[in-house]
């Protein structure tokens, strides 16, 4: 996790330097999201930081995603702004979904000796609009479709007289497609 943080910090710093040289702007887009899934709803938070140039924005984002198992997506974010005031945009995210170490198997997994969570792919595409505030700051609203995967492997050791006892393995691959509604600040 520390490595990832350092990479992000380094990338952000590089982007600032690049932005100064090319007169492009560094922007930070922070949003809360409401996730509407097939079986439940959930909340999340995202912070995307990157550079904007003309009608384009490229950044790196990270966040939290509580649907259905907690996870921390880290992703590349690409946006295209349209309109005279660049108030409409389309976005696409692609990244990896890191597992929350505090996760425990849900009720659907009722018997195990040990378990191991693993993250998976994370994507999000959608469209939105931004409403200008003062000093080139904006409120943003967007809606889209988010998809994430998470994996759980459980082992169940069968009691026996003398080890090694036979072991059963269960692999669960969760794939969750959700509608995501976001509201945030772009500055």
């Amino acid at each position, binding site marked *: 996790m520390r490595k990832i943080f350092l990479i992000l910090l380094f990338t952000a710093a590089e982007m600032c330097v690049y932005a100064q040289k090319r007169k492009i702007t560094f922007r930070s887009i922070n949003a809360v999201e409401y996730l*509407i899934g097939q079986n439940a709803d959930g909340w999340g938070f995202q912070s995307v930081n990157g550079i904007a140039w003309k009608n384009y924005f490229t950044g790196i984002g990270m966040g939290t995603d509580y649907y259905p198992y907690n996870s921390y997506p880290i992703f590349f974010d690409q946006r295209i702004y349209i309109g005279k005031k660049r108030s409409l945009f389309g976005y696409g995210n692609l990244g990896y979904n890191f597992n929350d170490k505090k996760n425990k198997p849900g009720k*659907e997994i009722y018997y195990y000796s040990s378990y191991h969570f693993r993250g998976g792919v994370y994507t999000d595409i959608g469209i939105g*609009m931004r409403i200008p505030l003062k000093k080139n700051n904006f409120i943003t609203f967007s809606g889209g479709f988010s*998809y994430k995967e998470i994996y759980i492997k459980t082992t169940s050791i069968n009691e026996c*007289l*003398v080890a090694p006892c036979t072991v059963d393995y*269960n*692999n*669960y691959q969760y794939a969750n*497609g959700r509608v995501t509604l976001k509201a945030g600040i772009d500055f």
Partner: protein
Amino acid sequence: MRKIQSTAVCTALLALFSLLSGCVKDTCKHSYTYTWFEPLYKTSAEVRANIKSNPATDIQQPGKMVLLGNYIFLNELNKGIHVIDNSNPSSPKNIGFIDIPGNVDIAIKGNTLYADLYTDLVVLDISDPTHVVKKNIISGVFPQRYYGYAYLSGDSAQIIYDWKRHDTTIMEDCSGSRQIYPPIPMGIYYANATTSMQNGNKMSNPVGITGSMSRFAIVNDYLYTVDDMYLNVFNITTPDNPAYNGQSLVDYHVETIYPFKDKLFVGSNNGTFIYNVSASPSSPQKVGEFTHARQCDPVIADDTYAYITLHSGTTCLGYDNELDIVKLNNLTDASLVKIYHLTSPMGLSKDGDLLFICDGTDGLKVFDASDVNNLKLIKQFGGMETYDVIAWNGIAIVVAKAGIYEFSYADVNNIHELSKINIAN
């Protein structure tokens, strides 16, 4: 202008949601990798004809053992009994194998060996351990060992003599109820190995020494067995013809039975139950109990204390791994004296002031138990995963993952390994 843009965004969002609504979906794919065992059958006639002394075979999955004189009778789980000549503990010899499919427990009195064959009780004459003779088979006395699974042959004259291993992976969605359990033999996962020192009977027909994991025990002219719930009594006054005397309900998930003098200590997942057999040996009377959190718990006892090891595990439930020492002066009010935390204790044995505990991957631990409030670790043999132990007459025999070990403790200050019989992979 802004109104137009907002309308455009809303329209686009609606269109997008319409397109993606089919994608809003939670899916869960499940792959289940498990091992199951296919039963291999022989006819009852074939099985019974083969209950005799056969050439020695490798020890692969050792279970309970019984010591008698210079011999160790070691169960090979569900397959039979290894006969080991232990006249020289520094060099024990595996000299024969008695084929008894479904065998888990053994008890010996004099020249007669009692063993279970699934639901049946087999009686063998072991006057010459190299040429055992089948004397009797009492059918259907262990009904809990009946295989009620679909894998059982419809022909009741067939008996499972071995299992063929299959490793299988199935794929399904998570809502699928995968109830494809391997054909686990009833009772086997509750029946665990070896025995104790107990009794001290000075009789012409000595009783074989069993370990703390045994489910068979002999006191005088009675064979006591436990199954998952009941204490069963057999009158063996006529050794070759055990007479079933009935049973009494003990508890759920009964695991072990340990005889000491005129008492039986029955261990279940929930506690230890003490029975007196002196007044009415054919109908033991419960005189005391000590309950604990639900755990697996082999138990041994001496005149004053009971020693109970609790260990956690899959079917054992619970989280504790400890040794409980319980005072027995007043059997109706057995009270906990002290708890010692251990790693994963299983079988245990006591000889004099020495307490031997198999502590899982921590190996064998030998304690000075002269003061139960202050057990002192004298020696630890690590590097092996131990299961059960019998300490008797200066020799401790240990069933471990890698083999059957023997240790000399004749000199407490020099407890050392004498020999090891390797377990075949």
